[in-house]
């Protein structure tokens, strides 16, 4: 999650105070990991330094949070570019699991059992995400779904690998 781009995106909705940005970030993107105030203000300072936001006015009243930030054309262009560019498909190719399976076969260890244990751990996490989905808001459900589909893809790989263990064993232990 890119904090500067997310804050810029929130600012494109409307000019906001740092406090409001933190509140909305935590509500939609924080997911139990709130953004520290310090990070909000340091990020906003950098965005202002780089010409992506300007400080419009200092509202009257008490408290430290009196500056209102407005996105600039430069900032809006960056948000636009970020939103329209696809995210890099994760290229990790199951490195850890793959290495474990191959090594287990090379070392004549029970690779199928390791895969079973991994499947069980994946399903356990999927149950947790399903509970979050059932109990939470639509935003929670959407996030949980993202995790669920990724875990499901891993599980398909586990199934396929499990079905090919005998062949793979011959290849890595000639």
């Amino acid at each position, binding site marked *: 999650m890119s904090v500067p781009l997310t804050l810029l995106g929130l600012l494109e909705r409307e000019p906001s105070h740092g406090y409001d940005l933190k509140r909305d970030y935590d509500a939609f993107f924080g997911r139990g990991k709130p953004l520290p105030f310090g990070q909000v203000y340091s990020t906003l300072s950098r965005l202002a330094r780089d010409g992506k936001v300007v400080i419009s006015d200092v509202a009257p009243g008490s408290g430290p949070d009196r500056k209102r930030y407005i996105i600039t054309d430069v900032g809006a262009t960056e948000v636009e570019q970020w939103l329209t560019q696809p995210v890099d498909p994760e290229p990790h190719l199951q490195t850890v699991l793959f290495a474990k399976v191959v090594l287990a076969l090379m070392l004549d260890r029970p690779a199928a059992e390791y895969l*079973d*244990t991994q*499947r*069980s*751990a*994946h*399903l*356990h996490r*999927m*149950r947790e*995400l*399903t509970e979050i989905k*059932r109990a939470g808001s639509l935003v929670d459900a959407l996030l949980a779904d993202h995790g*669920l*589909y990724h*875990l*499901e893809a891993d*599980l398909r790989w586990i*199934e396929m690998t499990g*079905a090919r263990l005998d062949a793979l064993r011959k290849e890595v232990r000639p």
Partner: protein
Amino acid sequence: MSVVIEARDVEFAFGQTSALRGASVAVEAGEILAVMGPSGSGKSTLLHCLAGILVPDSGEILFDGARVHAMAETERSSLRRDRFGFVFQFGQLVPELTAVENVALPLLLSGVHRKQALPRARAWFTRLGLDGLEHRRSGELSGGQAQRVALARGLVAEPQVLFADEPTGALDSLTGEQVMDLLVGAAREQGTTVILVTHEPRIAAYADREVMVRDGRVNAPDRIAS
């Protein structure tokens, strides 16, 4: 919690083809168990043995202390009618009956009078978001609606165990998850034990735990502490 239904070392063959080879599984009261496994692994055969639809060649099926494998067909039939509920991949609604009559069917077959059965069936329409569809026939329902009607029919008689064999297999992802959400919600509310056969991990994730069936045997992973 106590075990309500159990298979012990069950073997079953279709002619020369062995489907179950010493399958054992125990399900606790109120538990939602997912039975997973690849096609042809024996998971549906296991469900059919547990439900008293098939009689094992050897081994035992125990339900609430009773020896299901040793019962006569009439006794197993009563068990299925009075204590078990069923939902299959395709709703298998009776096309000549309206949706509400389909839901009421298990009650009517158990001897509940129509005057009592139909209101009980109608209550499920509100519960499962089916209001207004009571008098439609199965051909006039979407796949998701038909499956929710089938779910209502499976649960209307408040069975001790609901057997669900790929209940979302014919539905798209979103509709399938809505059906699962309703199934789990209703089962938990009335304390029904659910045995859910599925090959889809996202559907199995609605269960409390899963077992894998492979080559006719059950492989239950160690439980992971929550």
